[in-house]
């Protein structure tokens, strides 16, 4: 790392001292391969002397093999990491680069610019303090410039460098540069509120290829009097905001080495804290005061945003991972319904109504997303109607969580207002979201505690409430078995209700079709209705194909433990198709019905159902008796 600084050779202690005082800037570069993005980063690494001789030698040989610069060094190759990408000549993923100057250390998130990589760009932007938006001087503001700027503003980056690149290709023309700068300022004003850009803009005319205005002022552009790129990056102020905001500490870890010590550990999201300050634990609302800020090298008098700390409190109150510690006088908001912006990041579309895991800071909860209010076209910012979100699509949706969470609007605090969405079956990160505000209806509608409760109602009926959830292919025999079982129960004086798929679709769910999204909503409604029926004390029989594990799991989780009994009516597809009581398989095979489960829409069999019935070996009567015995065994009904 040949910083050719004499200081290193002459006074290493002084050098170390100066390096110790350096601050850190994280930035993202936005642009496409054609804009010279990789070249710009490669150039910065090269100019800041961050390339070793052996790397330079490898670079020269790589330039000859894969390079696009003829005899010259192709700086882009320095940053294009993975072998497959190098061969294709594109940057697919987010890569992080490091360099430092005498004043600052830099972490660069290098992300691809094409529309199909919007999620990668959002990922890089989520940790950046500043964005460099690259524009090809020959082309001016393009659709992609608008898209990049929109994502930058969405992710809350407050500093933008507009790098007008390839100035050498337009003969270093001042006119070209000024036109682009003016056009951009006008466009950016439209992104913010009150006609002001949502971020500070500093424009710099550069040539990454030739090195103009990167490190040294360019002699080719005497007319430009602003800062060169690197010196602007070295001096721009970025992190003054976090400390001025109210204190927020998301608790990651409760530290209990023995019964005498109970510390709460986390990284301060914003603000400042000192011993003696009055705090509130959210969402519970309990209050205490800070006793100590404990570190290995002694207690602290003060801790600030960005530090990882361990606090102790003066009162013994219950705090667990995921809680938020805030000042008693300026707490975060608490709610369970929100308006949010969501960027979808998975190949499988976002399905409204399906529960996803939502992780906000260290807290993970269940959340369901409503149908998008609208989708945003990332190129034109038009609002378009949508029923779901596909990969890389952005939409505004309401979210309901299964319990209260403490949060701040993303606009005021990235750390307490941003969340990820996780698929419960694949565990993949499928989306990211930004909280706008709590929906007032969640703040104002409180759960009404009723005096006659579910156990009282069930008692009157001399039974325990339960939901028997029959799932299986069309024609598997679900409804036949459920019917027989209900007759048996009714004959003995039990109170039951049978919710049948076909019947419900004639009424409550007649507005729904058979797309994946509608199937999810279909099941969500039925699950909620069956929950109400069980609440009323009924033994509720639900007979629905319900092909997806996620939704059956959602239904299960609505019910108290032991009251949800999944009955898998296991009939092989060939057999169901052979029976074809309603003639539906024939139609599906003929292409007259689309999205038919088992034919062109998947059925995900239960992994651990409470009851499994192989209809190939068992009559419907025997099946009903078997379930009846199971209800006795589970003491749902008395013998």
């Amino acid at each position, binding site marked *: *790392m040949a910083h050719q600084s004499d200081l*290193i050779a002459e006074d290493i202690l002084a050098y170390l001292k100066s390096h110790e005082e350096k601050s850190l800037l994280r930035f993202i570069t936005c642009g496409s391969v054609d804009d010279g993005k990789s070249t710009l980063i490669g150039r910065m690494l090269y100019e800041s002397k961050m390339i070793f001789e*052996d790397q330079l030698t490898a670079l020269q040989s790589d330039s000859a093999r894969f390079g696009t610069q003829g005899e010259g060094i192709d700086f882009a190759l320095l940053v294009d990491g993975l072998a497959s990408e190098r061969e294709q000549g594109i940057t697919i993923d987010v890569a*992080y680069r490091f360099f430092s100057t005498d004043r600052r250390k830099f972490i660069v998130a290098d992300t691809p610019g094409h529309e199909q990589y919007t999620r990668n760009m959002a990922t890089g932007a989520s940790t950046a303090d500043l964005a460099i938006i690259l524009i090809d001087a020959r082309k001016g503001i393009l659709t992609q410039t608008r898209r990049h700027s929109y994502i930058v503003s969405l992710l809350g980056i407050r500093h933008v460098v507009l790098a007008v690149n390839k100035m050498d290709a337009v003969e270093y023309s001042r006119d070209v540069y000024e036109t682009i700068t003016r056009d951009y300022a006008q466009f950016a004003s439209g992104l913010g509120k009150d006609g002001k850009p949502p971020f500070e803009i500093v424009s710099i005319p550069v040539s990454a290829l030739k090195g103009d205005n990167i490190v040294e002022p360019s002699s080719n552009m005497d007319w430009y009097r602003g800062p060169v790129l690197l010196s602007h990056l070295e001096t721009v102020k970025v992190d003054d905001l976090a400390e001025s905001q109210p204190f927020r500490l998301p608790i990651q870890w409760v530290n209990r080495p023995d019964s005498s010590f109970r510390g709460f550990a986390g990284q301060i999201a914003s603000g400042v804290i000192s011993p003696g300050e009055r705090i509130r634990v959210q969402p519970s609302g309990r209050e205490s005061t800070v006793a100590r800020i404990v570190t290995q090298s002694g207690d602290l008098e003060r801790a*600030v945003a960005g530090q*990882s700390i361990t606090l102790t409190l003066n009162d013994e109150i219950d705090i667990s991972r995921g809680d938020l510690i805030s000042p008693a006088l300026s707490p975060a908001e608490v709610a369970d319904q929100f308006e949010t912006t969501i960027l979808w990041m998975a190949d499988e579309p976002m399905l409204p109504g399906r529960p996803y895991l939502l992780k906000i800071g260290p807290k993970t909860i269940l959340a369901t997303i409503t149908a998008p209010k609208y989708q945003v076209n990332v190129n034109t910012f038009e609002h378009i109607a949508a029923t779901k979100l596909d990969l890389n699509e952005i939409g505004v949706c309401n979210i309901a969580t299964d319990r209260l969470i403490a949060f701040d609007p993303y606009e005021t605090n990235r750390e307490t207002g941003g969340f990820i969405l996780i698929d419960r079956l694949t565990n993949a990160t499928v989306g990211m979201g930004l909280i706008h505000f709590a929906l007032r209806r969640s703040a104002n509608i409180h759960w009404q505690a009723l005096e006659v409760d579910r156990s009282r109602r069930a008692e009157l009926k001399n039974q325990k409430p339960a939901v028997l959830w029959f799932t299986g292919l069309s024609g598997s025999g679900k409804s036949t078995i459920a019917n027989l079982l209900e007759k048996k129960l009714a004959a003995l004086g039990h109170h039951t209700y049978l919710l049948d798929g076909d019947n419900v679709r004639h009424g409550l769910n007649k507005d729904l079709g058979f797309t994946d999204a509608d199937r999810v909503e279909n099941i969500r409604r039925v699950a909620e209705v069956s929950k109400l029926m069980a609440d009323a004390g009924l033994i509720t029989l639900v007979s629905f194909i319900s092909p997806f594990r996620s939704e059956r799991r959602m239904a299960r989780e609505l019910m108290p433990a032991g009251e949800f009994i999944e009955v898998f009516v296991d009939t092989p597809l060939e057999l169901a198709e052979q029976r074809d009581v309603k003639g539906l398989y024939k139609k599906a095979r003929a292409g007259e019905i689309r999205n038919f489960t088992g034919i062109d829409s998947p059925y995900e069999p239960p992994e651990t159902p409470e009851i499994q019935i192989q209809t190939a070996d068992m009559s419907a009567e025997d099946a009903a008796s078997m379930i009846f015995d199971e209800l006795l065994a589970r003491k749902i009904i008395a013998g």
Partner: protein
Amino acid sequence: MLTHLQRLEAESIHIMREVAAEAENPVMLYSIGKDSAVMLHIAMKAFYPALPPFPLLHVDTTWKFREMISFRDNIVAKLGLKLFVHTNQEGLAQGIGPFTHGSAIHTDVMKTQALKQALDKYGFDAAFGGARRDEEKSRAKERIFSFRSKDHRWDPKNQRPELWKTYNARKAPGESIRAFPLSNWTELDIWQYIYLENIPLVPLYFSAERPVVERDGTLIMVDDDRMPLKPGEQPQMRKVRFRTLGCYPLTGAVESEADTLTAIIQEMLLTTTSERQGRVIDHDQSASMEKKKQEGYF
């Protein structure tokens, strides 16, 4: 305002606490080198006054420098930590070693396969590693929480997006996580931090008279009598030190006068070759690390 080292330390602590909270059976891979030393030092801070809630694991190829092993045992005893040492017994029985089988086979059997064995044997579902993104190009794209399939493979094309510092640590049974708390540190940051925090290091990093032979331009230290000498080869005492530590037959020494920490940092800053050059395994081809990692190399 925090300095860059304070920010890096705070980030590493945050990562360690997330893994400790979300994994069922985490472990810290301890390779005895300077990056492991920093990682361990930060772990002691992250959970203070408690000890880190996970053990250490050292994959011992049996070819490490002897000084590394004694240093390891001392540190572990001093800090009061639990250490697992694992050696690939099948490899040992087959007599696999760098001199007889070459660096590629030795590294695969005694390091990569041994690591998989150890993780499976103890059922560790998350392992901390001290790798840094500045070390090598394929590392630059690896996530801080990096997933491994049931057979420990890394799929670079199918990595989870990592937003803010909200890490998704969920996985199916059998899958595991490699977590890299030092991802955003550079070599200089590591040295600077060691200097500021006065972190103990294996003496091999400091220059001293050591017996070496020169092979293909690389200085190899004769650490024990398992090293077969070629005709005419005679170990010579030279003033050398090591920039990275691993198996002694695969780790090149550099001639140096640097016998203090500041002298080492000075030398590192003035040098013109990158740190991994001393590692014999990286030389094959420039995409070799990516290939190794897909196969399960840490």
